[in-house]
């Protein structure tokens, strides 16, 4: 198990390093100088030169590259151009809000998706199965920002059931939860569809397995066979799916945070763009990328812990 986890972790580190290289290359290759971008069109050449020196952009490319790597791995993503604060601090301030949003989205998708997929599989070919199938495709297809805006229009503006903006009063859990409902639904609704479809498919596959026949031959109840013996195997791919899904949810959360005026990483980056605060943008992108890769490594390790077969196949 430890060997499996270490292997997975090693692969994750390699991917993050390559992703950082790409980010660096992108900044370097794309025409446009970060310093002049940051200062805007009215900056004098002297100002740009001074900022370039402060950002280390006047040094040779390999020096910049080395410095970018070494400081990033020490957790130093540089300082914000205007206020001089540590980029990492600024980003981490927003992390809890985005995490709450994604946790909410995962709750929606798991709590609705798994039972729906299960019911569809058990009632295969029936009315419920067909309805769940069509709805799943539909919610997967709809872009999350359209869901965000329409749900805001319906539930917050027209019906006034739920708050339209903000993350709720600090310290007031109920108001925070109320403020979380709509944004997390917008982020998670598509994943309800993905998970329902996947659980249905893997449930049908599992129910065909010969160990399920054994369980029946031993007189175990249908309920126990479906929900304990089969579901336990059928939900395993959900973990991998959610691991991949975190990346998409991070994307969707940018829209949800903007539409519902919630603090969070997405909103931070969006606002940083409009004032051309370039270190914040790369810093936040790096943090979310690392987060995404770490989540996927964790998902694989969890799968390994839950499914002995995966562990065995990795050796």
């Amino acid at each position, binding site marked *: 198990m430890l060997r499996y986890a270490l292997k997975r972790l090693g692969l994750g580190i390699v991917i993050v390093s390559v992703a950082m290289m790409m980010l660096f290359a992108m900044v370097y290759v794309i025409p446009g100088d970060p310093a002049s971008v940051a200062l805007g069109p009215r900056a004098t050449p002297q100002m740009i030169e001074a900022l370039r020196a402060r950002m280390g952009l006047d040094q040779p490319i390999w020096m910049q590259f080395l410095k970018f790597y070494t400081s990033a791995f020490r957790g130093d993503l540089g300082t914000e151009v205007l206020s001089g604060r540590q980029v990492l601090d600024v980003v981490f301030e927003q992390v809890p809000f985005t995490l709450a949003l994604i946790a909410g989205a995962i709750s929606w998708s798991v709590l609705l998706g798994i039972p729906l997929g299960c019911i569809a599989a058990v009632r295969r070919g029936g009315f419920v199965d067909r309805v769940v199938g069509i709805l799943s495709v539909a919610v997967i297809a709809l872009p999350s920002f359209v869901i965000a805006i329409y749900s805001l229009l319906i539930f917050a503006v027209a019906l006034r059931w739920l708050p339209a903006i903000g993350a709720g009063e600090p310290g007031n859990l109920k108001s925070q939860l109320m403020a979380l409902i709509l944004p997390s639904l917008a982020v998670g609704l598509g994943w309800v569809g993905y998970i329902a479809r996947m659980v249905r498919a893997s449930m049908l596959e599992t129910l065909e397995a010969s160990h399920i026949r054994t369980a029946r031959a031993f*007189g*175990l109840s249908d309920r126990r066979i479906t929900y304990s013996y089969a579901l336990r195997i059928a939900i395993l791919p959900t973990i991998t799916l959610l691991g991949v899904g975190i990346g998409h949810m991070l994307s969707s959360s940018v829209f949800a945070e903007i539409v519902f005026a919630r603090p969070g990483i997405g909103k931070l980056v969006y606002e940083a763009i409009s004032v051309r605060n370039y270190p914040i943008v790369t810093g936040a992108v790096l943090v979310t990328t690392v987060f995404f890769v770490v989540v996927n490594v964790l998902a694989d390790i969890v799968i390994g812990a839950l499914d002995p077969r995966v562990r*065995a196949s990795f050796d």
Partner: protein
Amino acid sequence: MTVLDVRDLSVDFATEDGALQALKKVELTVPKNRIVGVVGESGCGKSTLINAILGLLADNGSVTSGRILFEEGQDLAHLDGAAMRALRGRKIATVFQDPMGALNPVLSVGRQMRDIQYRSGLSRREKDTRSVAMLRKVRIPDPEKRLAQFPHEFSGGMKQRIAIAMALMMEPSLLIADEPTTALDATLEVTIIELLKELQQQIGCSVLFISHHLGVIAELCDEMIVMYAGEVVERGTTRDIFHNARHPYTRKLLACDPARLSHRAARLPTIPGTLPDLRRRPAGCVFQARCEIADGVCSTMPPDAVVTEGHVARCWHTSEALAVEATA
């Protein structure tokens, strides 16, 4: 006294091309404390027979005639789901062919053994104690420790022993063994067969043993039936059938058994031809298309010809069958 008495059992499956008759008028008795073998090529209806007895026929399958009488006369063919489920695992236990896939891969062996004792009313600790005792009986070394392990941590032979332990744990009156040794190599096969025989005597249950391996049947079974295309073509004591087979199909089957070949053959003999289409069964004898001694009369349904007491062959030409081979 009989434990299982199958009478006139027919099973149909609904398919897109019409009904497929997988079993036709199957007769089979399993006396108490006896081991009865079922032999036949793949596709002869062995699995359908098991599923019909266990009440686990696929959704498109149904019993169209006959009865499956169990112990004191409960008819398994017409038992409701809950009553059937109460028998499965407790009175009728099964060991399946594929030891690799027969156990749930994500649950520990101990958990699965505990789960099947759900009707015993024992505490968790008592259930585990029984599981350990049972694993010891099938000679799994260090059973206390093994209980926490997962199926993939056991070898194929060990998994099959565990499956046998699970099947016999509730001391059933009937054990159905569905080709339990087919997936194992020859040396393992012998030990599993001996283990089964030993435990059967200890527990005093009857066994319905399905195999296409004639050697195993000869070794283990008291009585046997030979199935072809969903019909029982010959039944009797194992000794009678091995020494005095009267159905042409049985004789062919015996002739094809590599262990019984009297001379060295460059190529194993096979029976020419294929199984008939079960959606369009031939009128009369089901084996006629592949039979060397079939004639006009074979297109009418052959009778159950009694060879000796309890030895029956469904054929018009039970005496010619002997003569043809003697001259060949």
